[in-house]
């Protein structure tokens, strides 16, 4: 599919470089070291961080932000560690994901991955309790991912019934893990998300 130059957004690279972590985007010289070393490419052959970076530099905003492969990055930092141009690819991809999430919130985009829901549900636990509360996370994430409470609970049981029993038997799901943590300074954590975050 040829690139339609009149549909490009020349400001997209500046948008990414304006995000924390996205600053080094324009240093990329397309050597592909990031992609060759990436452990995900073996499993998801379409995943290609080099290409995502070049498309970003060209201004293919819509294509980049709606690419489902954005959401399979593990943030394992192999690409960042090996990049000869110090592009900080893992951080650049994170910056792009945050732009995509904002676009979805604004109703301009539908993200084809449950990962934003998971990340949000995780963050909500921190805002509420100051620490991660696994049960609270699962109770928020699964229904949202599956579209209803019943379906969510069914999916959660399927994924975690065996694991939960295993952990319980080994004494890793005791009262301390079952009850929500309550960090005394949790009001500050809430304030942090409000003042520093993008929500």
């Amino acid at each position, binding site marked *: 599919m040829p690139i339609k130059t009149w549909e490009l957004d020349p400001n997209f690279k500046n948008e990414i470089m304006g995000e924390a972590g996205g600053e080094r985007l324009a240093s990329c010289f397309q050597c592909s070291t990031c992609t060759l070393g990436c*452990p995900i490419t073996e499993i998801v052959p379409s995943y290609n961080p080099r290409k995502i970076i070049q498309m970003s530099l060209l201004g293919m905003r819509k294509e980049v932000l709606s690419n489902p492969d954005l*959401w*399979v990055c593990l943030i394992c*930092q192999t690409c960042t560690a090996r990049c000869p141009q110090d592009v900080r690819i893992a951080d650049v991809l994170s910056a792009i994901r945050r732009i995509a999430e904002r676009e979805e919130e604004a109703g301009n985009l539908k993200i084809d991955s449950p990962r934003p829901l998971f990340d949000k549900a995780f963050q909500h636990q921190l805002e509420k309790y100051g620490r991660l509360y696994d049960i609270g996370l699962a109770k928020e994430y699964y229904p949202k991912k599956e579209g209803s409470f019943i379906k969510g609970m069914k999916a959660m049981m399927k994924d975690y019934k*065996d694991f939960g029993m295993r952990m319980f038997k080994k004494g*890793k799901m005791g009262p301390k893990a079952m009850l929500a943590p309550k960090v005394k300074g949790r009001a*500050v*954590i809430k304030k*942090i998300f409000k003042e520093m975050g993008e929500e």
Partner: protein
Amino acid sequence: MSINKLAYYPGCPSDGTAVDQDMSTKAVFEKLGVELVEVEDWNCCGAAEVEDPKVVYALNARNLAIAEKEDLDIVTPCSICYYNLERSNKALKADEALCTKLKGIDSSLDYGGKIKTKHVLDVFVNDIGMDEISSKLEKKVNVKVAPYYGCYIGRPPETAFDDPDNPVLMDKLIELIGGEIVPNFNYMKTVCCGGPLMMTRGDIAFDMARKILDVAKNAGADCISLACPLCGMMLDGKQADIEKALGITIGMPVVYITQLLGLALGIEPNKLGLNKNAVDTKEILGKVV
């Protein structure tokens, strides 16, 4: 040895899925004569799910400020917590405007940049030192180990404290306590376990974890050793789920490096949480002499 007291940042899984890591870390430091003072009322570091660096820095400013009041450097057994604490520490030390902004949000975020943040592995090998540990060993842990480091020990460069491709700190400890490093596992040492995708792309996560378990098994390892609770959840906690989903049998014990070190220091296995690992560890205990 120059240190005798550190602030301890346990991380969120320490009460649940990684309680064995928490127990063994505390027991080992006690035996080594280093007092751990838990960071009072610590909050989550942001893990991998808080993607905005500014929020991560703010979350960790609070933890750093608490330890700074006690005038103690922070140590954590979790690689992700370490990465977040260390990069926040660096960012806050370098950015006065950020510090001023955080102070404005809440006085508890007022961090003066005076302390260091470290991973337990770094403290063992580089601060306490091999000679000191060696002098306290009581037993030989005669096991063949696949040392698995995961992501944030050798990466990214600005927070790394070991080699990105062939880290060695855990190898050194294993050899010191009488263990053997299996051949042909080196190339898997730092390949991600898949943990961050567990809840959103479990299929990819299982595939990645399976590779590590397979390579360790084929290399003839008695166990895999770890230094991160997320790796622990994937490789140990989820191992039976991986076996079931992929129709394979692995049966590879997975232990934290603090558990192995604790055995060599003569600590009671149950005090190291070795009865809590999902894959049975009895065979390893039989090789402690």
